């Protein structure tokens, strides 16, 4: 988290459309130079949050500070933020150069400096040769780069991106992800990036805020989110997981013993909370499950192999553990057990975590 002081602060921010609460008493702090993604299913309030920051929606409660100033009553044109829209929102009647010069023109930048900065911004996205084209003559990826360079040419405090890559095909999208990261690093931009694509959020961001029903479920680094999900929603939304229901029966600092609902007990890394007797879910990622024949290892669950599905780089093994379905990912070097065979699925104490049910 570069830049320690909170550069963007949402304090207790709410937004309601009629009786529907889209954002619910939300707090979020973003540091200067940080790349934070807002990730969530549609209707989770992520776009509304961005629109409130950009100034297109006014919060119904709470305060938003940017760089120490309250902004929630400022009109968009006074907020000095770069916004990249889903469908690029390039002006069709202007050339590429005119599009990029537009924010400079609005700020009264002189013609000579305008041209110099447009050239620099275009070089940054390597599209200098297209400056006299109209947007309609460009491909989707080129349009996206132009929109990007238009949003940073005036060196805004923050760049907001609203699902900017969702209209591109997979290969181009991955390429653009790298390019945006590169720009972020090179220019030290503060970026708020809205997406519903968890892969995109995990690969690009310094931190990811997972939103659900107008609240932040978890704000964490990508690896923190994946390895230590704190709620069932996050565990299920990010990646794939196996959840085993049980009750905490013993606990020491950082470790809990959970008695599973269908028998057996598991030793598991546990965050704070989860006192003895409280219900909990054990979350184990499929790639952390190892299949073997030794019942003596720690955290061994007796399973039956239901199906093996070949995926090229791995094999998905569908398991049944006393009526509950589990999924394991076997690497190419692992022994693949035939369908119908009995085995034990085991995992390390630190490779699983407890989440609230």
């Amino acid at each position, binding site marked *: 988290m570069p830049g320690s002081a909170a550069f963007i602060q949402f304090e207790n921010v709410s937004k309601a459309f009629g009786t529907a609460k889209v954002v619910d008493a939300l707090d979020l702090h973003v540091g200067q130079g940080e790349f934070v993604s807002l990730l969530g299913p549609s209707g989770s309030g992520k776009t509304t949050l961005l629109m409130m920051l950009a100034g*297109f929606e006014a919060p119904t409660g709470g305060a938003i500070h940017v760089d120490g100033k309250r902004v929630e009553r400022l009109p968009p*044109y006074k907020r000095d933020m770069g916004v990249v829209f889903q469908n690029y929102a390039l002006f*069709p009647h202007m050339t590429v150069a005119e599009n990029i010069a537009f924010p400079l023109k609005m700020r009264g930048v002189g013609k000579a400096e305008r041209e110099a900065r447009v050239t620099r911004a275009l070089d940054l996205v390597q599209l200098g040769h297209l400056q006299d084209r109209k947007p309609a003559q460009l491909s989707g990826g080129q349009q996206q780069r132009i929109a990007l360079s238009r949003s940073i040419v005036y060196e805004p405090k923050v760049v907001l991106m609203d699902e900017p890559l969702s209209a591109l095909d997979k290969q181009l999208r991955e390429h653009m992800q790298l390019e945006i990261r590169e720009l972020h690093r090179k220019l030290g931009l503060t970026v708020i990036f809205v997406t519903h694509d968890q892969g995109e959020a995990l690969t690009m961001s310094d931190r990811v805020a997972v939103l659900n029903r107008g609240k932040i479920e978890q704000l964490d680094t990508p690896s923190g989110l994946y390895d230590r999900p704190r709620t069932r929603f996050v565990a299920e939304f990010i990646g794939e997981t196996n959840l085993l229901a049980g009750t905490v029966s013993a606990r020491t600092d950082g470790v809990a013993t959970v008695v599973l609902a269908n028998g057996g007990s598991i030793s598991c890394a546990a965050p704070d909370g989860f006192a003895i007797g409280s219900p909990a879910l054990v979350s184990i990622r499929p790639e952390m499950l190892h299949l073997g024949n030794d019942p003596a290892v720690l955290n061994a669950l007796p399973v039956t192999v239901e199906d093996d599905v070949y995926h090229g780089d791995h094999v998905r093994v569908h398991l049944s553990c006393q009526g509950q379905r589990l999924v394991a990912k076997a690497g190419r070097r692992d022994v693949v057990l035939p369908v119908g065979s009995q085995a034990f699925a085991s995992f390390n104490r630190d490779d699983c975590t407890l989440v609230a049910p």
Partner: protein
Amino acid sequence: MTIARLKASLLVLPLIVFLGLFFIWPLWMMIATSVQGGTVRLAFPATAVAIAQWNGDGLPSPDVQAALIQDLRAEVVQEVFGDAVRSLNSQQAGFRTLLPRTMTALRNAGADATPKLERIDPRWSQPSFWLALKRGMPAYTDANLLAAVDLKRGDDGTIAHVAPDMAVNRAIMLRTFIIAAQVTLACAAIGLPFAMLAASLGGWKRNFLLLAVLLPLWTSLLVRTAAWMILLQDQGLINQILKALGLIDASLPLIYNRTGVLIAMTHVLLPFMVLPIYASLIAIPRNLMPAAAALGARPWQAFRHVLLPLAMPGLLSGSLLVFMVALGYYITPALTGGAGDQMISSVIAFYATGTANWGMAGALGLFLLVPTTLLYIVYGRLSRTPLGQA
């Protein structure tokens, strides 16, 4: 392949026949009539041949006089003779009395007598009457076209201005263009904000606004004009309300003047402005205005640099449409305007129905048709230019 195509074209045959019969043919006939000098030639065939030999100096030879006498004694269809007289009279005042009098005198004199024309009427000794007769003879004439713009051929055949007290067409033509331009401006001033409002709203509010524009379009022009006559009168609704509110003491002169014409025509033509602008506004991607704001454009800057340029094709189409239609307006200025607000169509109507001078009506119509056609070509170009290529 070709047979299939032929069969397919049969589908539009009724349309083509209709257009040909009720649009192109009458249009062609009107244009043709405006340049035909035929009525005089038709009524005086012998004179036409004889007078062609005369060079126009002094008085024509006795052969020409004999030919005219022969023509006047011959039986002609009453309408043909009447048309010829009217046509000659419009070139040279006096023919309206001269020709019938001469004809009666000749018929009374008997078939064998050879009276001198000067004896019957001294005007036959004036060369100007003979010149007018000679000039009325050619199969094609530019007399009507020249008269439409207040010009005529002088006695020596050069083009000259008509007497100032007869020169009204140019002034009325100019007035027609000015009124059409004023109406276009008024429609643009009202139509652009209206279309912007309609395009920015959603649901029933948008439908209501569009209906408010379309409903008058489905109502008869005459009814709408009549409604304005009721509203704008000295004792009409508007004046009564203003008086009741104490804003005015005496009635405002809202009708039978230019104000009335502009109000009524603007209202009638507003849909032609609103609909093209609305269409171009609706086509603008929804996030362009937010993008402009986010990039630092104040509302008026966003309007000036983004919305207006993108709405311009619609605004231009609408303006051309309104201007073209306004040029030909007749009923509305006739009912809501004063004598000084009549447009060129009323003059055309006067020639066509009032004096049956189809040549003049056609010539004036041609002067209306040419600019309208040119504007229509511009309009066609504009409406075909796609967004972003303008």
